[in-house]
């Protein structure tokens, strides 16, 4: 494929004209110099009318030649990466296109390749038959190019493995004996199971030409399996293109799409498989919902995980319910402590095993631990055995009861001798035994040797030929300590010693924890699903979430049919069962695209018994260089114009740099002169002066903006109402209420600030509280309103949230001692004579600074405030009572609904304002008679 060609090479003949253009360009005269010349008449007599052209500079000619050449080349339409058109027109074009999972990354290129072929077929006027190998139905009958294009546009990569044989059969059927011209396989490059048959049937059509188009397969990497190990998760991956070393990271993602852990897949050159270890704590691995290769968005690069990788549900059953008074002696104590971090534990609700065991089996445990259960009710044996057969793991611990149980217990892995063996003790010659190293075959392989464990008692197994291989752990003298027996899909494990610390100190050791954890980890979680369907053996699960071709999950289940999953079988995706999660939200099974252990092999076309041409996808879209050439020509034109202008002296009239600099300085100076008067006049003005002047001209009521919209609105309306009332009743005519931000605004303009406390509002910053403190010290007053008089219904005096917030606000403020407003306080008589100060609620006292004569304390605050209390605290919701809307009608009802209470609330507000503004002047009025007397009147 040549990387460069011309769409219309004939135009290139125009390049032959370049020499002529060159000659013409040389002859074109430049613009003449203009000269004034008085003796023109004399000159006119000698000057012949010959336009002798002056020669243009060679570089200008060259530039114009390049311009002409660029335009000619542009018209010739050169194309990068052109596509060869070599369709065989002997018969219809047959396009067999893989739209499998591996085509998702470069689907656009594939579509373009196919479109190009269809376009060629359209040009040649031959019909097109197009089939997609990952579709369920094929419309392979040759049709028009337009129809094929529609089909192509409708096709999407499917998260499936292609079935080429079916596609080939469909093509064979559709052609019905017609001999195709070009048969083009647009493959994903992955070998499939039915390739040989498919190729054979395709070549039996005897096409004039068979062509295989495939990508380089560099991006085709799939996860072929995942195994949850003891301390990490192994992720197996396979790739198609084994040429070079490759390193990919695999992310483990939870259900919310968060990446929890990652591992690295390192492919060595020539190797198609790699394994990544994702190390993560067990608890974290439980949350893995899927594994995906970073930066690869295909269905194959995602491995869905299901409950098989989840925490095990473990049922704990003890033979002796024991007593709560001696927990350390209970058989399940150590087991539950050991398994708590790793598994969900189920304990029976009743001690009656006949009831509790079927109950437990209904909840589908992965494993069941029976500690010293000797004899079970007869009717539970069968369900238990069924559960084990389906994959349950039964872990039993010995004990006095088991030792005393009859030997025909079907739920022990080995035949046990009656009674137990005691090691050590007063009546024994032997010492307690410690553990032998764990055999390499069992699950305990690799555990550190547990030298500190000693076993004093155990039950003994009857020796049988296969006892050794059933033994996972044994004592130093070789007697089995842990034996096992597989029962169909399940397993029974027996610890030959007790689960509490009476027979051995094993339950106290860390080894015990690790052993139990490994055993539980071995237990199949899949048993849960099958158990739900009783004895049928195979569960039929509806699609729950399906994987799309680009590796994301969708709730759209489309044509997916419920999948029947045999117990113990790993389901594999098929046409009817695209990969995804099957089941319900509570329990689902992951169906992955590739079966575990799958290896991707390159597509092998040797089965076709004819010559097969292989080619790659068309690269980037055949790129026309025409725009670039036109752009270059345009740039050259501009350059040429500039040069001509320059040669003709168009720029010689520009002012000299020094002149322009002088002019610039002069302009700046002039501008400065113009602006100077304005600047000099505005020098003492600052931003916000008008606001300050407005605040100073008129008294304004202010409230603290809490940040809670509803509270702030009520505050605003409340102060509006009080402002109107004041204007109507008194000589005080306040301006519009002002909301202040205590953190930033200047507070000193306001005689009183109303602060509705709201626990939901953001806590003011320490700096803001400090400003309030300073405001109060400087004579301002803050009216705190907790607005919760009736919030604490019981009269217990418990602090309400708003009260707690008020306490938090006041914690860092130096407040004077407070008292409820005394009857004879100025506040009660500064304008109206009032007995109490109701708001929306009545009953809460209005707390003011305790008067000096009452407290005998020399507070600085009172002196600076001229006897006015620096803070008022109420819970009566003043603003709520004052609040009026735009029409002047009250916004909120009083509690109880009482017009007089609202009136009194307004009066309280008036009294507070008067008290604020007049200070102790009103108090002095009390002493008028005494003063007059002192004056000698």
């Amino acid at each position, binding site marked *: 494929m040549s990387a460069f060609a011309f769409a219309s090479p004939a135009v290139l003949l125009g390049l032959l004209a370049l020499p002529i253009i060159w000659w013409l360009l040389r002859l074109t005269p430049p613009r003449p*110099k203009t*000269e*004034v*010349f008085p003796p*023109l*008449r*004399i000159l006119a007599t*000698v000057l012949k009318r010959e336009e002798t052209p002056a020669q243009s500079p060679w570089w200008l000619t060259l530039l114009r030649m390049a311009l002409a050449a660029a335009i000619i080349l542009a018209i010739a339409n050169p194309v990068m990466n052109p596509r060869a058109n070599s369709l065989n027109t002997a018969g219809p074009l047959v396009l067999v296109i893989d739209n499998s999972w591996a085509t998702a990354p470069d689907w656009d290129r594939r579509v373009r390749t196919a479109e190009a072929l269809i376009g060629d077929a359209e040009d040649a006027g031959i019909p097109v038959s197009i089939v997609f190998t990952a579709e369920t139905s094929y419309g392979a009958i040759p049709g028009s190019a337009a129809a094929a294009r529609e089909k192509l546009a409708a096709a999407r990569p499917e998260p499936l493995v292609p079935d080429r044989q079916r596609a080939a059969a469909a093509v064979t059927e559709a052609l019905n004996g017609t001999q195709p011209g070009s048969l083009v396989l647009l493959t994903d490059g992955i070998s499939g199971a039915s390739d040989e048959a498919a190729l054979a049937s395709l070549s039996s059509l005897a096409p004039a030409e068979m062509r295989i188009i495939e990508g380089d397969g560099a991006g085709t990497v799939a996860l072929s399996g995942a195994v949850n190990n003891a301390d990490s998760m192994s992720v197996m991956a396979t790739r198609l293109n084994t040429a070079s070393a490759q390193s990919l990271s695999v992310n483990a993602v939870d259900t919310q799409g968060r990446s929890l852990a990652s591992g690295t897949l390192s492919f060595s050159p020539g190797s198609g498989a790699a394994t990544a270890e994702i190390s993560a704590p067990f608890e974290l691995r439980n949350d893995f919902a899927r594994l995906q290769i970073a930066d690869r968005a295909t269905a194959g690069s995602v491995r869905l995980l299901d409950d098989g990788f989840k925490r095990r549900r473990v049922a704990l059953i003890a033979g002796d319910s024991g007593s709560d008074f001696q927990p350390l002696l209970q058989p399940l104590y150590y087991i539950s402590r050991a398994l708590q971090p790793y598994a969900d534990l189920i304990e029976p609700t009743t001690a009656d095993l006949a009831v509790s065991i079927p109950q437990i089996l209904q909840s589908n445990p992965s494993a069941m631990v029976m500690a010293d259960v000797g004899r079970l009710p007869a009717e539970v044996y069968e369900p238990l055995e069924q559960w084990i057969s389906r994959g349950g793991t039964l872990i039993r611990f010995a004990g006095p009861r088991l030792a005393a149980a009859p030997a025909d217990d079907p739920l022990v892995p080995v035949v046990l001798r009656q009674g137990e063996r005691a090691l050590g003790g007063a009546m024994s010659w032997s010492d307690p035994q410690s553990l032998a190293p764990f055999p390499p075959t069992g699950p305990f392989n690799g555990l550190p040797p547990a030298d500190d464990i000693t076993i004093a008692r155990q039950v003994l197994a009857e020796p049988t030929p296969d006892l050794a291989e059933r033994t996972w752990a044994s004592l130093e003298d070789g007697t089995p300590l842990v034996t096992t027996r597989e029962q169909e899909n399940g397993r029974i494990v027996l610890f030959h010693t007790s689960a509490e610390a009476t027979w051995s100190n094993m339950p106290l050791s860390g080894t015990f924890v690790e052993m139990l954890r490994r055993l539980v980890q071995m237990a199949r979680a899949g048993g849960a699903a099958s158990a739900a369907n009783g004895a049928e053996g195979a569960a039929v699960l509806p699609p729950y979430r399906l994987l799309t071709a680009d590796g994301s999950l969708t709730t759209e289940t489309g044509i997916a049919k419920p999948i029947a999953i045999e117990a113990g079988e790993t389901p594999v995706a098929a046409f009817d069962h695209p990969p995804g999660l099957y089941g319900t939200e509570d329990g689902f099974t992951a169906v992955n695209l590739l079966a575990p252990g799958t290896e991707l092999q390159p597509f092998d076309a040797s089965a076709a018994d004819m010559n097969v041409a292989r080619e790659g996808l068309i690269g980037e879209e055949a790129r026309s260089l025409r725009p670039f050439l036109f752009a270059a020509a345009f740039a050259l034109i501009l350059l040429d114009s500039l040069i001509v202008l320059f040669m003709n002296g168009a720029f*010689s009239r520009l002012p000299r740099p020094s002149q322009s600099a002088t002019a610039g300085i002069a302009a700046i100076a002039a501008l400065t002169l113009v602006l100077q008067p304005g600047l000099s006049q505005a020098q003492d003005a600052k931003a916000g002066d008008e606001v300050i002047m407005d605040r100073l001209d008129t008294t304004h009521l202010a409230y603290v903006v809490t940040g809670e919209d509803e509270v702030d609105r009520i505050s605003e309306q409340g102060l509006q109402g009080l402002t109107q009332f004041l204007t109507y009743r008194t000589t005080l005519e306040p301006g519009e209420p002002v909301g202040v931000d205590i953190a930033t605004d200047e507070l000193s303009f306001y005689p009183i600030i109303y602060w509705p406390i709201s626990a939901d509002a953001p806590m003011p910053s320490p700096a803001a509280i400090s400003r309030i403190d300073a405001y109060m010290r400087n004579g301002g007053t803050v009216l705190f309103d907790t607005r919760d008089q009736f919030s604490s219904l019981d009269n217990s005096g418990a602090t309400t949230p708003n009260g707690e917030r008020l306490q938090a606000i006041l914690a860092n403020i130096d407040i004077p001692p407070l008292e409820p407003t005394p009857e004879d306080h100025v506040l009660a008589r500064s304008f109206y004579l009032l007995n109490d100060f109701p708001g929306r609620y009545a009953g809460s006292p209005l707390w003011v600074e305790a008067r000096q004569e009452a407290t005998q304390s020399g507070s600085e605050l009172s002196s600076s405030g001229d006897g006015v209390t620096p803070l008022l605290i109420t819970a009566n919701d003043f603003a709520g009572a004052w609040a009026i809307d735009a029409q002047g009608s009250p916004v909120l009802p009083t509690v109880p609904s009482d017009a007089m209470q609202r009136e009194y609330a307004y009066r309280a507000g008036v009294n507070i304002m008067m008290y604020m503004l007049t200070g102790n002047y009103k108090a002095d009025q009390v002493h008028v008679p005494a003063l007059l007397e002192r004056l000698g009147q």
Partner: protein
Amino acid sequence: MASIGQIVQQTSGSEVLSRAQARAALVPDCMVEAKRIANTVIAGWHGRRKRGIGENFWQFRPYAEGENFAAIDWRRSARDDHTYVRDREWEAAHTVWLWADLSPSMMYKSTFGSVSKESRALVLMLALAEILARSGERIGCPGVMEPVSSRNAAERLATAIMHAPQTSGMPDTAMIRGNSDIVLIGDFLDEADRIMERIAPLARRGMRGHVVEVADPAEETFPYTGRTEFTDPETGEKLVSGRAETVREEYRRAYLLRRETLGEALRRLGWSFAFHRTDHLASEALVAVHGYLSGMPVTGYGGRS
């Protein structure tokens, strides 16, 4: 690329005056030798070499019957028996018309010349006026100023020129009466025949003329190269020369031929002709013209023809 020639602003009269006075100081006083005695005789300093009203002694001649007794020179008559009358030489002032071409083409100045042609022409005219006024001649300017006999005639001429309307072409000679001298200063770039058509009537009226051609060096040497568009400052006519350097020799020949033709025609009229280039000193031209006016042509100056 800056052009070689340009049109300069009209030289202001006062500036020209100061420069003209400086030039005039370079030249000795000039006495115009009157060749002919005009009928309109007014007392002047020039002896007319004939008997008449004057102050200088001319001759003693015997007293004739009927003459005024007051005319008898008794001192001379006492020396012998005859009665003599003292004749005085007839002294009369001469009228010299000065004219400079102030048309737009005169405002041309090239990079080779030091001043524009107009400036040089004005300087020459006023210098002549200064010299002649000092000699007591009557100075006039056709179409601008009636002849005056005044010591400050040059200043008055300058003032008159300052207020005179812009003129072009040859002078309006209607106010010239009688025999007088006329000095024409200009570039005379028109065809020689057309110039002579205007000048010949003046000569036929008996005027004696002096023509000074002021030329810019660029007009004479034609230093242009390359593709050049030439513009006539008077008519605005344009002429494009593809390669100016190719016509240089031809142009120079045509230019000099015109000068030759003009000079020849003037000489036939008995007029003098001098040419002057603006890259030369103005005093050179002044000396030449002065020589012609005083009847003693300076030889060796390039303007001779």
